[in-house]
């Protein structure tokens, strides 16, 4: 039985995104966003009967939400620890759970004090998913995600002629969208020249190719599609979903093709489930820990061929009136690093027509991707319905 169209996102919520949440705990931030999403759905907190934790950071657990929201009967509880692929994996997991009748309204909370608390860049060596590179590559001085991903980008550049200016196109367009959104950490326009003048971090990735470290939280509620018909918001149906893992998932160094992510395996499955093609996508929220990862995913999604991503993003193609509006909220690069849950929230707002100054005209079908843990990929396709 396909879960396509049997689940809907019925509520979305977020806090202010900042670089300093003023000493509030991760749990308090997640509770604020969760209440926002539950209220948006027109539900009472006690109606939540499922919780999917997208990131098993240890900072919060499902029990915290039972305790604080007064949930009387939590029937489904699970975590999807795939790093930045976790939020969209959580969407898939929750959609499957409500489609199967295991629960009716699942809450997916995500929040972090990535700037003022445990800084993202300093934390990954402690994660079990990074055990292999921790043993064999960290002693070489390969410490940060930028260093692990840079050789992928370098090889793409050498093989296909992709340029840093093409990566800059992604950063510049994303910044423009963040400014339109309003709830974003980065508020000043960015030019290609400023990107090119920004300091090199891990060649070929410059400062403005890298995402933010942020404080804040966001959350979504996923409900059974038949129940969603009578709920407060217009239905946003989850029509396609898939997860994919790259070859050599624990060490990019050993991967047969450095320029292919797990998403390349997942995307055809999700499009087939949804019964659409890339040409049908009106808006795409694409995980953007680095500009390069956006370019690679555009290829792996099939919007263009392998090696054609550089040309694809040129000339403002990812802008609101471009050929494929991407990261209309400002993404991890310029809105906030909410591990991609903010991408899920934005896609739902786009498909409801609630995206304000960054609204894509007549957005009916869209997709959101996740990317994490050195190459895992997730995708959800959604449609107004």
């Amino acid at each position, binding site marked *: 039985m396909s879960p396509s169209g049997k689940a809907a996102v019925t509520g979305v919520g977020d806090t202010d995104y900042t670089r300093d949440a003023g000493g509030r705990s991760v749990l308090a931030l997640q509770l604020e966003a969760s209440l926002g999403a539950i209220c948006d759905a027109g539900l009472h907190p006690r109606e939540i009967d499922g919780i999917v934790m997208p990131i098993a950071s240890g900072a919060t657990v499902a029990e915290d939400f039972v305790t604080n929201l007064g949930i009387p009967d939590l029937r489904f509880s699970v975590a999807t620890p795939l790093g930045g692929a976790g939020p969209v994996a959580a969407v898939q997991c929750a959609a499957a759970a409500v489609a199967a009748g295991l629960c009716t309204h699942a809450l997916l909370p995500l929040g972090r004090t990535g700037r003022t608390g445990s800084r993202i*860049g300093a934390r990954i*060596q402690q994660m079990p998913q990074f*055990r*292999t590179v*921790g*043993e*064999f*590559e*960290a*002693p*070489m*001085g*390969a*410490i*940060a995600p*930028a*260093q692990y991903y*840079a*050789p*992928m980008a*370098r*090889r793409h550049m*050498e*093989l296909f002629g992709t340029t840093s200016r093409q990566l800059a196109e992604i950063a510049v367009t994303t910044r423009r969208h963040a400014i339109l959104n309003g709830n974003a950490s980065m508020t000043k326009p960015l030019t290609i020249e400023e990107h090119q003048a920004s*300091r*090199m*971090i*891990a*060649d*070929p990735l410059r400062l403005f190719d890298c995402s933010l470290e942020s404080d804040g939280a966001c959350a979504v509620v996923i409900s059974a599609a038949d129940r969603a018909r009578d709920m407060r918001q217009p239905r946003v149906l989850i029509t396609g979903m898939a997860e994919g893992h790259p070859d050599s998932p624990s*060490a990019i*160094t*050993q991967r047969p093709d*450095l320029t292919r992510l797990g998403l390349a395996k997942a995307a055809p499955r999700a499009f087939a489930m949804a019964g659409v093609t890339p040409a049908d996508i009106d808006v795409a929220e694409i995980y953007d820990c680095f500009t390069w990862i956006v370019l690679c995913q555009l290829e792996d999604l099939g919007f263009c061929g392998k090696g054609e991503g550089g040309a694809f993003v040129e000339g403002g193609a990812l802008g609101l009136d471009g050929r494929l509006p991407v990261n209309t909220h400002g993404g991890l690069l310029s809105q906030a690093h909410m591990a991609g849950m903010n991408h899920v929230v934005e896609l739902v707002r786009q498909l409801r027509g609630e995206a304000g100054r960054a609204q894509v005209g007549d957005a009916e079908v869209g997709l959101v991707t996740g990317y994490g843990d050195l190459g895992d990929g997730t995708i959800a396709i959604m449609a107004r319905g």
Partner: protein
Amino acid sequence: MAETPKPVPDISPETRPYWDGLAAGRLLLQRCTGCGTIRHYPRPLCPACHGFGHEWVEAEGTATVHSWTVAHHPFHPAWRGAPPFTLVTADLPEGVRILAPLRDAAPEALRIGAPLRIGIEDNGQGLRLPVLHPT
């Protein structure tokens, strides 16, 4: 002031011979005694035939450039003052890759397929690691 410790490998029983090999100045790779497949990084099981049996063979010592990155930021206190430094992803003729620092060459000279020679160096804190030299 004491030197900042660099990351040390969290060695398991299955990876111990690899690190012992480096300490003795040899880059060792696992070869499956069932099907002959060479695998890297070290792990308990052969993904081709699912045999646990393996032997350790010394890498021939040559490599070619697969990709690279130049760190312009230290990322770790122990590398303060080290940037820029180049880490090369290199293909070995044995069919696996290594990641190792580049020695005696500027990154501008690197090209995919360029030939390299594998060396082994002490990291200044008693851990011996592979490095890559141009040929």
